[in-house]
């Protein structure tokens, strides 16, 4: 049985993984870069080792250093979290070679799902619906035209090794096709060193819905129902919820079965996520598999009542799954808001810096997964997500109202955050009515960026508060008798001028 786990990650996910370890009586090992010496995961772990300079290429992505710490600390397993090395098949292989348990799927599953064309082919063979399009790499432009004749415009050209929107082209009519293929291939080549592309029908206003799956090493595979992740900005999820407002029991059952089939097709074990595109007519298509823990896993944990990290560790220990599919039942509704250190009013510019003050929202139905503390400097080197706020309500309506309440309660000062933007999402009619797809933010941007009204009275109060702080600072700088006179009487104008130099 695993007794000590090295968490090869930082930030909230490192802390979240360690929490489950502590509850299971497993010792925890943190690794850290220069910028993270004082980070929460270092303070929270039983052991901590420095692995390099601040840029992740010199620390959190260094397989050799992480492996060295694993050996040195006597860890018998590594949990990769998400991002960094979590979907790196070579790292999973290295762990296997070195006799350290990788808490995740096999290198084979990671590699197969990591290459989009291979994944597509595997899904087609497993009978999981994929977006209509090519089964193989596009080798000629003639072949491309033939494929499109069958599926019709518009289509997407996508890089097989792609991600983050690179090597992608939307083609609306035949005249654009040739240049789009050439452009996509050349971009794919320069971005990923691989110019393989494929063609898919373009789904115009899709929902992004994913299924959480769990599988043990004996082939038992179950799903923990869906997550609706259509609230995205530049392909980054912002808000997730479960159940999906458009889901039906029948569709859940059908998609769930396909998600399980997709996992089984790569002999998957561990926790993973099958992402689907769903169109307005509830047709769904396999998009990709994330062969790791997802940022948004807590909403599933809340609604089905399962600690997914604990299950990952159990599976890695070679235990049977704790549950059968029949035991998985959803209860109530859960929403997650990702808090980014960014300035929505200034084109979402990132905002690292020192956290001056935090008030975490508390009470019924609230979970916060974060890693900030007062005085901590959010580094400039890593992801801007600084916290996740997860609420639960008996109904979707209650969950939305609770999310508004908790966003109001959540105070973070010192860095700019997306909290006010998230509040506007909760207030947006399209969201409230559950009528949204991946174009939600684009479509509602004016609404989302508009401020709640503040009349003259509320401006007056804001001015007075700033004035009170201004005075209190003056007092600290000039705590002399001269200033006391000024502070208490505020009348001796002659003296004020001298006291005002801050």
């Amino acid at each position, binding site marked *: 049985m695993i007794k000590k786990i090295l968490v090869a990650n930082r930030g909230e996910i490192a802390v979240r993984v360690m929490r489950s370890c502590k509850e299971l009586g497993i010792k925890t090992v943190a690794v850290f870069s220069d910028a993270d010496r004082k980070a929460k995961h270092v303070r929270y772990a039983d052991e901590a080792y420095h692995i390099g300079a601040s840029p992740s290429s010199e620390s959190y992505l260094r397989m050799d250093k992480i492996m060295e710490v694993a050996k040195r600390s006597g860890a018998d397993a590594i949990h990769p979290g998400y991002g960094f090395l979590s979907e790196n098949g070579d790292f999973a292989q290295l762990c296997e070679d070195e006799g350290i348990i990788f808490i995740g799927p096999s290198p084979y599953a990671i590699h197969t799902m990591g290459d989009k064309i291979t994944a597509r082919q595997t899904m087609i063979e497993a009978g999981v619906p994929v977006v209509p399009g090519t089964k193989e790499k596009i080798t000629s432009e003639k072949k491309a035209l033939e494929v499109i004749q069958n599926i019709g415009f518009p289509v997407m050209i996508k890089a097989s090794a792609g991600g983050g929107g690179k090597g992608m082209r939307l083609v609306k009519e035949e005249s654009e096709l040739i240049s789009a293929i050439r452009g996509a291939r050349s971009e794919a080549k320069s971005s990923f060193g691989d110019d393989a592309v494929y063609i898919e029908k373009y789904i115009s206003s899709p929902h992004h819905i994913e299924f959480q799956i769990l599988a043990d090493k004996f082939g038992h595979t179950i799903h923990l129902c869906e997550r609706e992740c259509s609230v995205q900005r530049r392909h980054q999820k912002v808000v997730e919820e479960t159940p999906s407002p458009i889901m039906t029991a029948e569709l859940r059952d059908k998609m769930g079965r396909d998600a399980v089939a997709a996992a089984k097709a790569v002999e998957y074990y561990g926790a993973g996520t099958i992402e689907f595109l769903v169109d307005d007519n509830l047709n769904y298509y396999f998009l990709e598999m994330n062969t790791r823990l997802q940022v948004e896993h807590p909403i599933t944990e809340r609604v089905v009542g399962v600690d997914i990290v604990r299950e990952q560790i159990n599976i890695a220990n070679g235990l049977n799954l704790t549950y059968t599919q029949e035991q998985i039942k959803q209860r109530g509704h859960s929403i997650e808001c990702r808090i980014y*250190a*960014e*300035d929505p009013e*200034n*084109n979402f*510019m*990132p*905002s*690292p*810096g020192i956290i*001056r*003050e935090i008030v975490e929202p508390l009470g019924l139905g609230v979970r916060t997964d974060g890693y900030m503390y007062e005085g901590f400097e959010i580094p*400039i*080197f*890593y*992801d*801007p997500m600084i916290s996740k706020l997860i609420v639960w309500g008996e109904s979707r309506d209650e969950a939305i109202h609770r999310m508004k309440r908790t966003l*109001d309660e959540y*105070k973070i*000062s*010192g860095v*700019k955050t997306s909290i*006010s933007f998230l509040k506007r999402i909760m207030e947006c009619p399209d969201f409230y009515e559950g009528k949204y797809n991946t174009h939600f933010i684009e479509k509602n941007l004016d609404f989302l960026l508009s*401020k*709640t009204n*503040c009349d003259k009275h*509320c*401006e*007056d*109060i*804001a*001015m*007075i*508060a*700033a*004035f*009170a*702080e*201004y*005075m*209190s*600072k003056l007092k600290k700088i000039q705590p002399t008798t001269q200033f006391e006179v000024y*502070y*208490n009487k*505020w*009348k001796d*104008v002659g003296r*004020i*001028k001298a006291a*005002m*130099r*801050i």
Partner: protein
Amino acid sequence: MDFEAIIGERTAKLTLLSRTDKILKVSVDGIIYELDCVTTGNGVYSIISEGKSYDIDVVQGLSNKQFIVNSDMSEYKVEIVDAESRYMKAMNKAKGFDEGNIIFCPMPGKIVKILVKVGDTVEKGQTMVIVSAMKMESEFKASKEGVIKEIAVAEEETVSGGQKMIVLE
């Protein structure tokens, strides 16, 4: 003693009438407020005005007279103008100095690229510096036509929030 407070387009006249540990009496554009105003420390104020309770967090902005005010309702930038800042503004004006000519870096980050050099003429909207922070690159553009007078940062340099990067003329 009179002050001014600026929020967005609005400039209001602030007059302090009296101040004890608890009660703050102040007039804003002639309206007199008598408030139960206490601080819980560290820039956090609890203000009760005619029964209404306001919980307000005030953080210093880019200068020591600029404040970011967070109330339950929203966030505002408030600038307090006092005798000293009036004097400084007058002086700068006399010298022909304009704060709008300075490009500050609003957040900590790393200078990825500087696309101009001293003496260059830039057009409105032209990108001058690219700063990287948190895996995102932000472009800083000229807000008006001008000539580069000073470049205060170097490529690969790590900058802090509020640091001066470029001065236009």
